[in-house]
């Protein structure tokens, strides 16, 4: 559980006072985006901490990111085997505890959160059956979560979308509940890229500490390696996710 060293020295981050916050990034066998997530945490001013799926203790972290990839090759179902990793039991307990550990699941991480029952619904194959990779605009529907409080409600952000099993499904009752309680956190704008029910790109739990979404905010944090935003400039909108959790953690201290 050491701090993740990053490729290239980022030096002092602009929000150095926040760097005390420790954000765990979990690696499962087959995880791909753990380094990108760690880099995003660092760029936002936090301290990324590498966590291993087989660890039995969560350690001294203030929040956790479940990054994207293909945990266990997505065999059985996307996220289904990762859900039973020893560290997941600790994360589920901490997320449901009074301390309400902030947890962000991105893509495969979102699939793991649904399989672990921290979030409702499930993901199935994209309706067009193709792996998809594109710049995707999202509308922030809920800015009262641990991971979205630095956005405006209704704000449109651009991040990268890349997935194969990205179609969000749930029964009508669950979907109505999510809508009624304001728990749809993000919706696709312009085009529904995978047939998700009601254009849902991301959701939150009732307490607002657990958020899952299919698109990848950690790939939109540096101008040189980012999607084109709606304003024609390279988007670093993804930083808002990590700035949000750091802001909440600082306020809580």
């Amino acid at each position: 559980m050491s701090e993740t060293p990053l490729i290239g020295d980022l030096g002092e981050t602009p929000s150095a006072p926040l760097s005390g916050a420790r954000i765990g990034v979990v690696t499962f066998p087959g995880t791909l985006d753990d380094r990108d997530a760690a880099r995003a945490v660092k760029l936002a001013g936090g301290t990324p901490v590498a966590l291993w799926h087989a660890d039995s203790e969560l350690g001294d972290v203030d929040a956790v990111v479940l990054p994207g990839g293909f945990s266990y090759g997505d065999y059985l179902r996307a996220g289904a085997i990762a859900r039973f990793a020893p560290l997941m039991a600790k994360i589920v307990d901490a997320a449901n505890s009074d301390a309400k550990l902030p947890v962000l699941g991105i893509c495969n991480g979102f699939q793991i959160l649904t399989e672990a029952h921290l979030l409702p619904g499930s993901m199935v194959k994209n309706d067009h059956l193709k792996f998809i990779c594109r710049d995707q605009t999202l509308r922030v529907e809920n800015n009262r979560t641990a991971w979205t409080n630095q956005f405006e409600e209704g704000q449109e952000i651009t991040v990268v979308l890349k997935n194969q099993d990205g179609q969000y499904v749930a029964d009508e009752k669950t979907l109505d509940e999510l809508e009624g309680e304001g728990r749809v956190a993000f919706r696709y704008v312009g085009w529904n890229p995978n047939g998700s029910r009601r254009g849902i790109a991301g959701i939150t739990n009732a307490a607002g500490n657990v958020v899952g979404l299919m698109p990848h905010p950690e790939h939109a944090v540096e101008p040189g390696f980012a999607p084109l935003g709606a304003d024609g400039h390279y988007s670093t909108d993804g930083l808002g996710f990590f700035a949000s959790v750091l802001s909440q953690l600082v306020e809580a201290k």
Partner: protein
Amino acid sequence: MPRIVVDVMPKPEILDPQGKAIVGALPRLGFTAFSGVRQGKRFELTVEGPVTDQILEQAREAAATMLSNPVIEDVVNVEVLDETAAAAAEDVAAPTEAE
């Protein structure tokens, strides 16, 4: 060694994209009789000794908690594989392959 078979199918109301792709491709090969395909999963759980009621119950529990996701899938069958029937089926299949 005895085996327990678990069959899991996507729920009827869930769009099955894989089944949809298959049913779209079948007519291209001349198979025009089929108007729908649903693709499920079959698991075979091997047991070292005899299959007791307790072991069968474990298989049902594994099917409900891990092998299927109740949001999108139904467990449609959990049963002990009849080895004699299975062997007979293989015997029947063998000459066909040789033709």
